[in-house]
């Protein structure tokens, strides 16, 4: 059946992301929350994460490129990004956020800027992974909806 094959492909892809260290087990917990009443839950969470992450990264870029850095505000945004990335299983991005926090504690602007670039790279890797998962999930949802509509 098309749906089963897609599901297996998705599982295989998620395992590959685990093996590469891009996702940890928290992603599996998020996926496990999806049920028949909320078949698009994972897609919604991925969309929300991407929206929040991009806004947060944009704020951080502006703040850290200011002449005088407001480290308290930087910490606030980094803190949010750490929470959301760890919640969706983006372990490497969460680690990069933690490193920025430590640099903020030392009020080290240059180090923060270096780590911001690293965090952006980790986000881009995570985003690419989540986009693929999103599209696979969408195909599965559409296949299931088509199957349910058939007499």
């Amino acid at each position: 059946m098309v749906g089963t094959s897609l599901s297996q492909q998705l599982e295989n892809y998620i395992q590959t992301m685990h093996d590469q260290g891009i996702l940890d087990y928290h992603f599996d917990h998020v996926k496990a929350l999806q049920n028949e009443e909320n078949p698009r839950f994972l897609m919604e969470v991925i969309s929300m994460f991407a929206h929040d992450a991009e806004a947060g990264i944009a704020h951080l870029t502006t703040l850290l490129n200011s002449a005088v850095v407001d480290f308290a505000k930087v910490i606030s945004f980094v803190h949010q990004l750490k929470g959301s990335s760890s919640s969706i299983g983006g372990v490497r991005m969460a680690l990069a956020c933690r490193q920025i926090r430590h640099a903020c504690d030392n009020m080290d602007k240059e180090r923060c800027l270096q780590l911001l670039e690293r965090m952006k790279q980790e986000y881009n890797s995570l985003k690419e992974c989540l986009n693929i998962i999103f599209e696979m999930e969408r195909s599965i949802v559409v296949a299931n909806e088509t199957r349910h509509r058939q007499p």
Partner: protein
Amino acid sequence: MSDEDIVNNNLTALVVDDSPMIRKLHEMHLKKFGLKVQVAENGKNAVDLFRCGASFNLILMDKEMPIMDGAEATKELRIMGVTSMIVGVTSLDSIFERQAFMEAGLDHCFTKPLTSENIIFLLQELNNKNNEEN
């Protein structure tokens, strides 16, 4: 506490977090364990809910939120006489920051993201609390 007891509860929960994604995750997670869930996007909204007469067995409280943060909201709720179980769920790494959050009046504090093990622990604590009160 059996698995059936864990899911067949009449417990209510309030998720307080400024992140829509985290609110959604925690809400789904708690609903999976049979709790009825409401959400609030900051500490002030949570306090206002209680002032309007709402009550919840469990409050999941983020620390860093605009308008009123989790520590302030927790202190305010305890001053109001709220005896709900208030559990901090935070990304804070610093032991001192977490200790300060606990001292605001939390019953427990977990690191984000919340896990099923955390929720099972909380349900058992709530069950014990109910047994003591009855």
